[in-house]
């Protein structure tokens, strides 16, 4: 029984740690599949976290908080889209600038709420659970609705990309904007919407942190999770299920490290912190070993600007 509780609590903790990475990663994955590389995930997450927390603090509604975060993330992404898609600015430089901008903007927005205590999103799907419930049920107390939403989003995005007509068009745009354009696909519109989706999901990921996972606002509270999400997209070779595996693996490594430490075993936490990046580099090396695999994995038009010829 005690072991079951322990195993279940590791599983639950892993899922919770993975949820914000999944939101941000899925959003970026869709944007990249349309051929746009947005390195501003960390910045969009931070703005989402600050705006989400502020909106919840003002209105008292979690739903409005989440919506505000989604809109804020999308607004940041719209700025990025305007610069890179319309004005053809360099995507890498603009994305980096977006992150730096997001760090500052979120600090400014969140200033009145820095350190204000808040209660987290309740585990609404588990009515009747209380602190004095049996241990096994208590573990489930930790699963908030956003965790379920994150995993539902994986199924939805995977279906969208592989089975829907729009998803097909989006992938075509990411492979070759010129060909897609010649076939009558509205390249810029699809890319714009994909980038917007990426921003909305990053905003949601931020709100997951500031409203559910660690319910508060403090500057830089994402602590690099946006960058990990970016790394996971490459690690996943742009496939939603692999992204899920990567996010869970990363969450699990962190949790397992703490569990091992509390048991008295020791790992180098610094080495573990480098794992997602190391794994990404390994995957990059593997998929670039031959041209065919690289072409199959990465969206061919990733990072390439498109100017409609007519």
């Amino acid at each position, binding site marked *: 029984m005690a072991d079951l*509780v*322990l195993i279940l*609590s*590791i599983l639950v*903790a892993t899922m919770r*740690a993975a949820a*914000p990475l999944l939101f941000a990663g899925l959003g970026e994955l869709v944007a990249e599949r349309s051929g746009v590389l947005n390195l501003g995930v960390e910045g969009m997450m931070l703005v989402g976290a600050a705006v989400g927390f502020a909106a919840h603090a003002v209105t008292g509604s979690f739903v409005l908080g989440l919506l505000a975060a989604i809109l804020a993330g999308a607004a940041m992404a719209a700025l990025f889209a305007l610069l890179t898609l319309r004005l053809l600015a360099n995507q890498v430089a603009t994305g980096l600038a977006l992150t730096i901008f997001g760090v500052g903007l979120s*600090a400014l927005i969140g*200033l009145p709420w*820095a*350190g*204000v*205590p808040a*209660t*987290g999103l309740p585990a609404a799907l588990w009515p009747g659970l209380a*602190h*004095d419930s049996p241990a096994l049920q*208590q*573990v489930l*107390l*930790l699963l908030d609705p956003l965790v379920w939403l994150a995993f539902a989003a994986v199924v939805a995005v995977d279906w969208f990309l592989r089975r829907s007509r729009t998803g097909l068009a989006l992938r075509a745009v990411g492979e070759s904007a010129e060909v897609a354009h010649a076939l009558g696909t509205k390249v810029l519109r699809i890319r714009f919407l994909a980038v917007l989706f990426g921003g909305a999901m990053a905003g949601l990921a931020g709100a997951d*942190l500031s409203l559910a*996972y*660690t*319910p*508060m606002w*403090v*500057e*830089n*509270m994402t*602590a690099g*999770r946006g960058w990990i999400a970016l790394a996971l997209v490459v690690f996943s070779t742009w496939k939603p299920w692999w992204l899920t595996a990567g996010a869970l693996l990363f969450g699990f490594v*962190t*949790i397992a490290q*703490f*569990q091992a*430490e*509390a*048991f*008295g075993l*020791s790992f180098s*936490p*610094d080495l573990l*912190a480098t794992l997602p990046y190391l794994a990404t580099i390994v995957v990059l090396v593997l998929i670039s070993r031959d041209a065919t695999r690289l072409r199959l994995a990465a969206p061919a038009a990733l990072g390439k600007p498109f100017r409609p010829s007519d």
Partner: protein
Amino acid sequence: MTNLPRRTVLAGALATPALMTRAADAAAPLKVGFVYVAPIGKAGWTYQHELGRLALQAKLGDKVKTSYVANVSEGADAERVIRQMASDGNGLIFTTSFGFMNPTIKVAASFPKVKFEHCTGYKRRVNVATYSARFYEGRYLAGLVAGHMSKKGVIGYVAAFPIPEVVQGINATLLGARKANPNIKIKVVWTSSWFDPGKDREAADTLISQGADVLMNHTDSPTTVQVGEEKGVWTTGYDSDMSMYGPKTCLTSTTMIWDQYYIKRANMVLDGTWKSTDTWGGVGSGMIRMAPLNKAVPASVAKELETATSDIAAGRLKPFVGPVLNQAGKVAIPSGQALTDQQILSMNWFAQGVEGKL
């Protein structure tokens, strides 16, 4: 500007320092600057320094003019900010993070007339004093309360890095807790980050799942206290009174009160008696104070805490007194002996009963 005769400009530039010195000699207020490592927020390390600044301003009124720069990162940026403060005519500058040590020493060398005070560092100069608090005294007292409140005999400790200051806190917590329960143990988890609320949450969840029923943390976010509140597990706070993050479950907090020190040092600059010193205050000098106890703490425990607090304040009780064994079972502090300050400052071992690796 271009229309001004060059000589006027030059004369003005030359005259300015002289004017400033004269103004400072007269009744002009002493400008006191504070450099903070983090945003102020509502609680935490920097918040306590800000309370000290406000107390100084309130106490000395128009004799001082205080200002601060918050969220200064440790490194090159710190030197720029400190240098700017010194050139702005501040006569006394408090730099309140360990990582400001070298920049403070460097800037102090170019501003011999300005007095500097660096918090938690060990490098001094004729115009740089250092100050810190015996945080471990508060940890010992928090441990005493935690030891009484823990039913399972396991305290979970979310810690950032294995540096002496953190190690002292963990050992002191254990020794305090063992006064209440001789078999209690502490499980330590390292987050390798002073500030990562997500990691704090994962570490706290882990410790709870492994049976800890009192949580403590030595990181800069209130997350551990929040997790305790969410899951109905006791916690103790650090830096500030953290009870607002855990109204039902936060037992007490080790708080740092810099008010009296800041007032004293500013007064010394005003009356010309300031000297470079090294201050290590504690419960006795009021730098460390325990926040009000949670209502759930029984009166007998409150009484014991009160006695222990006054014993520490009077020097009758020292947290690090033998016999204490280390993790390997060897004598770390011989029976009846107390560690010297130097031994405390360089502590790099865990007492028996602490589970965790250094």
